[in-house]
């Protein structure tokens, strides 16, 4: 019976001659069916949704794609830092979101100070240096804090996953409370410099220049990390360290130094993401730290830990789901769009338990 079913499923999937356990083939079939259904729904059916079917509202569809790319870019900036730390040191850095938010707050404070206002300034008041300089300050501050956390709390707990997780959770709670104390509980945005302002209009849609800027930054970060990991000695050591840390050490390389570099870099990316996201898609308020930690976790789980390509693929997939779910769920159910994230997680993990680009440790 099983053989018959296996045969049937294999034929359906065009896998003649190759043996695939039938449960697995059935999962594949199910997922293929789900993807086809979602595509057909978005393109032709999608009635009673906020966007409407793509064939009748192509510009809304295009706009959703651009939104997906923007949010993917932000996910990527933050999660690539997370995957660097998580992948290399096997440290579940639970304070990653706190660094994200803290950098945002620092940038915000300095921006208000530079512009000379106490509440959100008008875009035209924000000069070039009033955005870039706070960005640099925020990133530098959290990089330093990241290094401090690694050297003081995590370094001597290498390999103790649970301890490291608990320590970083504690740090995130302390930082969270301190941020409420110093920056208050009111949601505030950072304001982009007026150069990164305005809209582009094409084929009937208006799209913010700052959103293109975010995509550009993400590509820049991706390019930089790719060069770092592929072309430099540090990058090779990081990749080798992901595979087999003790062996790297037995070859005379002080992995601790490389760990520290990776941690600083990961923290800097959390900070960079925090300032850019705080200027574009989110306001800074208590709780944002936890949300972005969760975003990073989702991306890394989907993509596979320690892999740059995985972080990119995970960000893209997650970004598409984040942007499309509210736009293409029937309006009465749009509130449940968050569930789509978990559906994606479940589907990816069902097919590839270590994530799209992940390998067993």
């Amino acid at each position, binding site marked *: 019976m099983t053989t018959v079913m296996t045969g049937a499923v294999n034929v359906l999937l065009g896998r003649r001659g190759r043996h695939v356990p039938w449960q697995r083939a059935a999962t594949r079939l199910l997922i293929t069916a789900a993807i086809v259904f979602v595509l057909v729904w978005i393109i032709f059916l999608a009635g009673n949704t906020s966007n409407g079917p793509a064939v009748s509202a192509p510009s809304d569809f295009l706009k959703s794609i651009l939104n997906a790319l923007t949010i993917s870019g932000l996910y990527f900036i933050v999660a690539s830092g997370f995957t660097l730390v998580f992948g290399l040191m096997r440290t579940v850095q639970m304070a990653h979101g706190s660094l994200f938010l803290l950098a945002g707050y620092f940038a915000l404070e300095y921006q208000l100070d530079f512009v000379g206002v106490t509440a959100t300034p008008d875009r035209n008041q924000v000069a070039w240096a009033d955005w870039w300089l706070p960005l640099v300050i925020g990133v530098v501050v959290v990089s330093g804090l990241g290094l401090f956390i690694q050297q003081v709390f995590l370094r001597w707990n290498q390999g103790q996953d649970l301890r490291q997780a608990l320590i970083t959770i504690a740090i995130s709670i302390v930082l969270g409370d301190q941020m409420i104390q110093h920056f208050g509980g009111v949601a505030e945005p950072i304001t982009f410099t007026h150069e990164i302002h305005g809209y582009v209009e094409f084929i009937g849609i208006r799209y913010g220049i700052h959103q293109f800027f975010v995509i550009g930054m993400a590509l820049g970060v991706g390019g930089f990390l790719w060069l770092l990991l592929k072309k430099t*000695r540090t990058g*090779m*050591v990081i*990749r*080798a360290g*992901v*595979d*087999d840390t*003790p*062996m*790297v*050490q*037995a*070859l*005379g*390389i*002080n*992995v601790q130094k490389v760990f520290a570099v990776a941690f600083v870099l990961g923290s800097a990316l959390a900070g960079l993401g925090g300032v850019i996201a705080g200027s574009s898609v989110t306001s800074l308020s208590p709780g944002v730290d936890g949300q972005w930690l969760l975003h990073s976790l989702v991306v890394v789980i989907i993509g596979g830990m320690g892999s740059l390509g995985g972080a990119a693929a995970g960000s893209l997939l997650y970004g598409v789901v984040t942007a499309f779910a509210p736009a293409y769920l029937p309006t009465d159910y749009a509130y449940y769009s968050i569930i789509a994230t978990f559906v994606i997680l479940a589907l990816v993990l069902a097919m590839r338990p270590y994530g799209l680009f992940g*390998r067993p440790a």
Partner: protein
Amino acid sequence: MSEPLLEISSLDVGYGHAQVLHGVDLQVGQEAVSVIGRNGMGKTTLCNAIMGLLPVMGGSIRFRGVELVGLPPYKVAGTGIGYVPQGRRLFTSLTVDEHLAMLARDARGKRWTPTEVYELFPRLAERKKLSATSLSGGEQQMLAIGRALLLNADLMLMDEPSEGLAPTIVEQLVATSRRLVTEGIAVLLVEQNLSVATAVSQRQVVMVSGHIETEIGSQELLDDPDAQRRYLGVESLEDTGA
């Protein structure tokens, strides 16, 4: 034996409460020495302890007069020990060339550079851009040795390099090891393959249940099927016709 390069005395090592090595004493000079013994006798544990990859419970390991016990692995390697681990342990995300490029900086201007390694193993040069995982077993072993050579070490510590290799590759391995010794590099070889161990070194140190049982000359061991059976649990070379 010449002036000892590596001097291990009363070494105790264990995992948690389970002690594996009991008072190991071993001296290696400017020469090749093989540590032989059956599976589970503590040979690999000895290698890990030397490299600082395992905590040592007692005793000392001195290399050129420097105490290695308590040093982190990268400092142990830095004193001049090249490590070729059991199972090669190549980095799956790195290409052949990257394995060597990663270590090239400190090798610059010394005897062994990536160029020299490629000259020694031309097959690796042909496969520079390939992932280390796509290599054959023999090529992987060449890369593991080449990688260790880039440390320009005084002592090569090789843990079962012949494991799982075809006979012709094993011959090449023996030739390479001998060449290293003639170049003045000491070799500490951990082996189960008697023909490899005896071809590479004159001294055969026999390890049984975590201590050095005896030391025997290669020819003497080859002539004594009974000792071979006792120490290695193998049929003698004559019986198997090897």
